[in-house]
């Protein structure tokens, strides 16, 4: 019975594949973009992948999501895709160090990988890391929050998953912005591991219920707490607590338009997928290699970082920020080969 069911599923897949018309292609590379697990942040990767395949004539750019946010599931998925003939991998590391053994194995088999949205820890065989400068983004977001608060008060940092390599950097950046206020601003609390719906609901609502009178502002450096905090502040009906979030979920944008939220730091996941797939195609074609002497940014994790762009969305640009990000993506892509690659 099991074999028959498996056979039916497999046969359906084969049939579906056979019936899919192939677009005209300039490259026979198959590129996989693999997040650390299911998360709304990565949703624009799918469109970025599809657009890159179309615009650059790549045989396939596929968005593959591990079923859970666990490194071993991610590595199993990567290895199975390598076995299927994928030649380039854009990976958000499930763990900054844990991913490196798999990436080294890919490299040993002639397959290229780059880190997208989050970096692997050096030494690594990742070609480079292309993502948000999370330290800078969190720093600018906290500065914007302090400005919205009138330069003084107590703030709370709603941080993401502890297993996310970016969380530590963001925490340090928030602390730096607070330290620069000469004691006028204090960090009341850092609430970590809020980048999951249930945890965010419980922790943020409990925080506001218990301490809202002591809180002047909140900075969220992860997607889900941004959404949950925006909703919680709307329900509270209290515009005294200033809030700066991250990413551009419609709930956060609506709250910005209604004056409930001061702003949110936009990232560029679409651009990460689009430019990442473009670069992987060039690397996998064998005609280009990463230029070791390129003007990479050095971060605590890697000496090969490239910023995919960030900007503050406020009530002033809530309607036009996407055009700004698309222009930024085009600009990065247009100069990428000359700036970061060495091609024959």
């Amino acid at each position, binding site marked *: 019975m099991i074999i028959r*069911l498996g056979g039916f599923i497999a046969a359906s*897949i*084969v049939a579906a594949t056979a019936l899919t018309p192939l677009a005209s292609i300039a490259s026979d590379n198959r590129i996989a973009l693999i997040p650390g697990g299911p998360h709304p942040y990565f949703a624009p990767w799918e469109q970025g992948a599809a657009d890159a395949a179309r615009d650059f004539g790549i045989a396939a750019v596929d968005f593959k999501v591990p*079923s859970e946010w666990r490194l071993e599931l991610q590595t*199993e*998925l990567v290895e*199975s895709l390598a*076995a299927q003939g994928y030649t380039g991998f854009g990976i958000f590391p499930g763990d*900054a160090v844990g991913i490196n*053994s798999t990436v080294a194995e890919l490299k040993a088999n002639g397959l290229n990988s780059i880190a997208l949205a989050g970096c692997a820890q050096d030494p690594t065989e990742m070609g480079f890391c292309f993502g948000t400068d999370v330290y800078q983004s969190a720093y600018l977001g906290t500065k914007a929050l302090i400005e919205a608060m009138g330069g003084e008060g107590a703030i709370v940092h709603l941080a993401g998953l502890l297993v996310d390599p970016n969380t530590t950097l963001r925490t340090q950046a928030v602390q730096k912005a607070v330290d620069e206020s000469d004691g006028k601003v204090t960090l009341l609390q850092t609430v970590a591991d809020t980048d999951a719906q249930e945890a965010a609901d419980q922790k943020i609502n409990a925080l506001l219920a218990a301490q809202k009178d002591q809180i002047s502002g909140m900075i969220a450096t992860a997607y889900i707490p941004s959404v949950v905090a925006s909703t919680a502040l709307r329900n509270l009906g209290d515009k005294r607590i200033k809030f700066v979030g991250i990413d551009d979920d419609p709930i956060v944008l609506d709250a910005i338009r209604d004056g409930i939220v001061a702003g949110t730091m936009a990232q560029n996941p679409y651009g990460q997928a689009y430019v990442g797939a473009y670069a992987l195609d060039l690397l996998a074609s064998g005609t280009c290699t990463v230029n070791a002497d390129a003007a990479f940014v050095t971060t605590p994790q890697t000496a090969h970082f490239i910023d995919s762009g960030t900007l503050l969305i406020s009530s002033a640009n809530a309607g036009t920020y996407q055009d700004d990000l698309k222009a930024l993506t085009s600009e990065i892509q247009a100069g990428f080969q000359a700036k970061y690659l060495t091609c024959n």
Partner: protein
Amino acid sequence: MTDSDSAPMRRTPVLDLLNKGSTQLGLFVIVLAFWIFFSSLAPGFLSRFNLNSLGRSLAIDIVIGFAQMVVLATGGMNLSVGAIGVCSVMLTGFLVQTLGLPIPLAIAGSLLGGAALGLLNGVAIVKTGVNSFIVTLASASLFSGGMLILTKAVPYNALPASIGEFGKSSVAGIPSLILVAAAIGAALLVLYRYTRLGREILAAGANARAAQMSGVPVGRAIIFSHALSGVLAAAAAVMLTARLGAAMPSVGGDDWLLPSFLAPVLGGTLLAGGMVSVIGTMLGAALVSTIRSGLLVLQVGNFWLQLFLGIILLAAVLLERYRAGLALKRQARRA
């Protein structure tokens, strides 16, 4: 009773396939059929890259299966296999990265840690008389919670490269981790087949009251089995750390629960206790790993994997019930 025993009886071929002695052969045929099925649909399934990956996953699944099997032998169960696993992963990381111990010493420390947690389970079960299901359900949360408090959920990701290198290494084309799993399997085979302690464990599992009256120290057998389960869970944890090259709190846990039961139950180990199958457990793990790898290579989502594993476990349990019924009928006929 171990998988070496078989009573010569006249049966139809169908019944023969359902008797214990043929369980491993049946499993082997099913695994082989899946290999043919997957490799014909997805040539990448037999690529060197995929076989290496499959081999390393299989090795860990086998040892996870052993960790449950040794407790099933006593008629109990250990729901804290995954919790002990993740504690051992983090203990390995702590001993190597924070204390800077040499790797062999750190591995020994991790195995001892696993044994201690298993021992706690065994002592609690024997001393309180509470069912192992309840005790290990509680201890799973206790161990995981304690680990999170002590480590603050921060991964140890600055381990020496040699740990990861061993996880990736091969001997004559066979992943080193598979050889480790095979060595553990051989040791367990010797334990249950050739030692007094092994026979006492199986006797205690088959009928605790009868064993007790025959002078078998049932309590000691249960405590030893749980301590051994802890050691094996820790061994799987060390292997996983070697595979990943890092120790992190997001591994093990509940993810090990289903595979830990699947491998031994598919292989013919009785849930009621008294009979284990080391070879069967290895084949059961091979079936699970094959299906997982095959579905991934066929690009069938991981979400389907959970469904398939659940169906397979249910089928295996029903088959076991059927076999147990047949065995009872045969005993009645003999009497």
